[in-house]
């Protein structure tokens, strides 16, 4: 079924066409982009049916590298996991395309925007289809550079450019882990073909590598359990997990549809996808699994609390994404990969929906009526936002209390883990629902507090040509899809699991129980109640104007400030990593290059000049000149003596002349010697050429 290769190629070609067309296409970039991505979506559905009926499909592309034992064949592999993600990515991306075709009207870089989002989508599609770690890495990085281009979409805004650079650099640091993991994988398995690696992984578990062999020492390590650690570090960067999460809130500088794309369909989903794709390798390393679960859990909790304190709706949404992805990562760490996929798909749909409706509202609220809220109380977008918030708040609990977790808690072997994750889960549910509702309510009552660009597209003049947002049909379509999808997945949980099982090649998992077969009251009521409590809390906080109540002591205030400042991650990075590296670089340059090496070279040069000068004075002037003069004087004396004997006058004249000539020659020599090195070098080169010619003639 080689036609499936068109799924990523269509957006890629669309991107090329729009990009190369440049300004010639005026504002018609979407007319190429939308059909391409819709066709991809259609093909993805076909692929889904194909995989459902006939199992995985693999496509060979071409041989990228062949060097000694390193042979890299690019090939694609479409299995159950891939088709689900293909559906999500193409689906969300087509919605985003359609939405942006209205949203971006009036933007001076309309076509560039469409070219980049098409490339972004294409690289994510390629990533989920790739069956080769190197190809995955390529797509991974291309996606990174696309996000860079999209975040810095308004190039004239310095903050946007800084955010873009920051996003890319944070990812670049994390990608060291991924690249190293890939090299370690090749070193261990001798191939980068994912299917081969996964099938060999179990057998290679006790394979050791002597890392100090080349210096004759003996330090064996087990590479197979180590690989997931490094690969996960890459995933941490892309999915904005704890130490690397700082880029995602800044990525909000991008136009809102891009946020929908980054948060829902591409980019951040790559991390969980990588973990799920390599799950058979992952489960071989319990320590890595624990590490992953802990990082995921911490991130989920941290980001949720931070978002509770934020006042900027886009920041809140960013931290909510970090928190949700943290959930997925934690789920992967616990081994419940099926749940993670489910969460990934559901979160993708809801988040896309949430962002697009936020974009709607922001655009409706912000430019023309910055402070009025009454007019927007009845905005149709408001209802959609409430629905989205409710849905978003309720996914994690439903997942958290579903069957597979129970199993995995017992698998990882920590008795406390179950309790711990329950608590984390419940806190996060509470907080999620609280901040979401708070943000929505404050949006309608106070207006958004996001930093919207004052320049460019959103000025009042341009606003008049902006269409009022009537993307209602799209949004309701999306919400219907998600509800239907969620309902289907909830109802047919076991079917979903069975569908995915071959792709994950899970072993040892018991038959997955459907959600409905679980204890109904527990799994739905507890989290729902918690979510409602969060809602109520948000409402209460909101309606009662905040007063300095006596109950709030200093400790809680400082805690609030701490989380409001996101635990000072950005400041710490700036102060302890970025600024010192720059200072160190400058110091190194000044100290070693300029003062060290260059001065040493200059020292050699000037000391040889000094030596030359000394030689000239000692040997030439004091030595040879004096001898010559001495000889001259002696000869004059001799002459005088002789002159008394012979013809004094005639001789005297002659000798004087000789002496003068010697003096003149000495003078000329003095003129020549201290000339610049330049001339000496030229003379040297000339000499070299002459010597060669003479050599040639002689021989």
């Amino acid at each position: 079924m080689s036609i499936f290769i068109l799924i990523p190629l269509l957006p890629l070609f669309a991107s090329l066409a729009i990009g190369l067309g440049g300004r010639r296409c005026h504002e018609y970039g979407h007319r190429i982009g939308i059909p391409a991505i819709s066709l991809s979506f259609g093909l993805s559905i076909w692929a889904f049916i194909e995989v459902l009926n006939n199992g995985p499909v693999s496509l060979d592309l071409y041989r990228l590298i062949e060097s000694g034992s390193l042979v890299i064949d690019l090939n694609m592999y479409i299995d159950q996991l891939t088709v689900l993600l293909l559906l999500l990515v193409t689906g969300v991306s087509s919605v985003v395309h359609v939405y942006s075709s209205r949203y971006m009207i009036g933007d001076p870089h309309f076509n560039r925007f469409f070219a980049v989002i098409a490339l972004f989508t294409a690289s994510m599609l390629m990533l989920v289809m790739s069956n080769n770690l190197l190809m995955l890495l390529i797509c991974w990085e291309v996606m990174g550079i696309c996000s860079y281009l999209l975040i810095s979409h308004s190039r004239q805004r310095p903050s946007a450019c800084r955010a873009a650079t920051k996003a890319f650099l944070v990812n670049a640091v994390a990608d060291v882990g991924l690249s190293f993991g890939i090299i370690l994988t090749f070193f261990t398995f001798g191939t980068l073909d994912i299917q081969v690696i996964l099938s060999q992984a179990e057998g290679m578990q006790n394979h050791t590598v002597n890392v100090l062999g080349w210096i004759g020492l003996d330090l064996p390590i087990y590479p197979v359990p180590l690989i997931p650690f490094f690969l996960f570090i890459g995933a941490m960067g892309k999915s904005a997990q704890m130490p690397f999460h700082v880029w995602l809130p800044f990525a909000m500088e991008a136009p809102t549809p891009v946020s929908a794309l980054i948060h829902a369909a591409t980019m951040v989903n790559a991390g969980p996808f990588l973990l799920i794709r390599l799950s058979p390798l992952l489960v071989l390393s319990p320590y890595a699994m624990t590490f992953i679960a802990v990082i995921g859990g911490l991130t989920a909790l941290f980001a949720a609390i931070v978002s509770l304190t934020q006042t900027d709706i886009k920041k809140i949404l960013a931290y909510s994404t970090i928190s949700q992805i943290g959930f997925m990562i934690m789920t992967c760490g616990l081994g419940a990969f099926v749940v993670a996929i489910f969460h990934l798909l559901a979160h993708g749909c809801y988040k896309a929906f949430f962002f697009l409706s936020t974009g709607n509202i922001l655009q409706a609220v912000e430019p023309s009526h910055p402070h009025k809220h009454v007019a927007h109380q009845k905005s149709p977008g408001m209802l959609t936002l409430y629905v989205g918030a409710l849905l978003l708040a309720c996914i994690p609990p439903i997942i958290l209390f579903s069957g597979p977790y129970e199993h995995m808690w017992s698998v990882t072997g920590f008795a406390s883990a179950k309790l711990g994750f329950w608590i984390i889960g419940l806190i996060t549910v509470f907080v999620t629902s609280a901040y979401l509702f708070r943000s929505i309510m404050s949006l309608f009552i106070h207006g958004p507090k996001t930093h919207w660009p004052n320049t460019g597209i959103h000025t009042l003049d341009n606003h008049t040509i902006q269409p009022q947002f009537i993307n209602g049909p799209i949004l309701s379509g999306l919400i219907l899809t998600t509800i239907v999808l969620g309902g289907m997945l909830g109802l047919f949980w076991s079917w979903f699991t069975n569908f995915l099982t071959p792709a994950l090649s899970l072993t040892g998992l018991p038959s997955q129980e459907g959600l409905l077969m679980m204890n109904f009251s527990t799994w739905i009521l507890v989290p729902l109640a918690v979510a409602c409590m969060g809602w109520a809390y948000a409402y209460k906080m909101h309606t009662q104007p905040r007063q300095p109540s006596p109950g709030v002591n200093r400790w809680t205030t400082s805690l609030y400030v701490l989380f409001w400042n996101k635990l000072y991650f950005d400041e710490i990075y700036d102060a302890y990593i970025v600024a010192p590296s720059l200072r160190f670089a400058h110091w190194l340059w000044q100290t070693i290059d300029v003062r060290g090496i260059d001065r040493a070279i200059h020292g050699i040069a000037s000391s040889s000049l000094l030596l030359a000068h000394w030689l000239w004075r000692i040997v030439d002037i004091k030595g040879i000149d004096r001898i010559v003069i001495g000889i001259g004087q002696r000869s004059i004396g001799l002459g005088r003596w002789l002159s008394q004997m012979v013809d004094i006058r005639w001789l005297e004249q002659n000798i004087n002349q000789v002496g003068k000539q010697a003096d003149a020659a000495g003078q000329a020599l003095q003129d020549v010697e201290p000339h610049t090195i330049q001339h000496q070098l030229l003379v040297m080169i000339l000499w070299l050429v002459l010597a060669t010619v003479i050599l040639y003639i002689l021989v």
Partner: protein
Amino acid sequence: MTLLTDHMISLVVAVPILGIIMLAFVRDQEWTRRIAFGSTMVELGLVIILCLRFDFTQQDMQFVERMAWMPTFNIQYAVGIDGISILMVLLTALLCPLAILCSWNSITTRVRAFMSLILLVESAMIVVFTALDLFLFFMLWELTMIPMYFMIILWGGPNRSAAGIKFVLYSLTGSLLLLVGILGLYLQGGHTYDLLALTEHTFSATTQFWLFISFFLAFAIKMPMVPFHTWLPDAHSEAPTAGSVILAGVLLKMGGYGFLRFCLPMFPEASAMFAPYILWLSVFAIVYGGYMALAQTDLKKLVAYSSVSHMGFVTLGIFVFNSQGIQGAILQMFNHGLTTGALFISIGQLYDRTHSRNIADYGGLHKPMPKFVALFFLFSVAAFGLPGTCNFIGEFLVLVGTSYTSFAMVLLSMGGIVLAAAYMLWMVQKVAMGEPNTKAAATLPDLSNRELATVIPLAILVLWIGLYPGPLMEMMDASVTNLVNHMDSITLAQVARNVYVP
């Protein structure tokens, strides 16, 4: 016809010389440029024909020509080409037309002399890359220095004479050591300058030790490796654009080529002995060059220091002695020629407009010059090895090759890549993003068609090699495999015996 096909390489060498002769009869500046450009294009065509006729499956020298030159000293004119040198010749032929194109309007004084120097250096470099006789190699190695020196001191920036002297002093020191090495080889290797004969000759350990040192230092200065690199930023920043392109694009590669052609095959044991130190020095160069580039405020110096970092990858790849490493190193040399050449051309285009190389003088170029910024961005991301662009393939191969030696080196070198991403993106951010910082900046004209024609071929190559490096890899595969086998057969026992300091 057979006369031509038998003397393919001599023809390739002769075309630029013929161009110089033709230039002697032309007075008109425009025609001077056209003739120079024409002869480099003919050269490129010939080299492409050469590549097409080249038999990739063979590991030996092809198109070999031999002629006695100075029979008394056993010196001959001998040239030939194999998988390693063909890429370097191709790179030379690719970059020289672009060097002429990019100096079309910027060089207005003594055009004839300038064009002649470019043609002369092109011809000399091709002989360096194809010479099979050490004496010939040395002569032309020296000859490449002279046109560069004149390009710097006659058409360079404000500090040109200091930079020129520094360049020549460093180079002369290097070539003196090279001369010593070559004479040593001649005396120890049976009184011949024939490269192939010397490669077959086995030298004693002490001889290898001393000769390796002298050759290594000569090539390390040319590369340049870290303690010997300070001539590079000065020479690059003061040279005219075409000079920087040729210097960074091709001349530096003579060092790497020298390692592959002399050090590895002739002194395998000494190479293996020195390898750990050289490898650590390379890793140091990668990180150190990155830090240096981070500290720069001058565009050309930034790119020059990034070259130091990239050349670290080349030596790293060469001295791990496996086919991934060496192929990666050769690819890295080729790719570095493309990307750094392109970056220098781009900076030259900026310099032509504003006469400033200071990063702080720029800002917000995306507005007046969108085409320029798009291409500049592509070359910048290629320079830090974004996957999908050409540098990535080379760096990845080198890192895979290094992983057989030491994981610590792999990790540290990756740190160098992160630094590269940092300085390149910061440069792009400061130069291209934001609001135009002066009124003049907002009215800069975008790239003209000729300027586009200079950089677009490079852009296409950067992406093409990044996504489909197969043909290039295939070209050098047989020769590299041969080299690796040669090394293995000699050094395996040796390496196993010795315990090295990490």
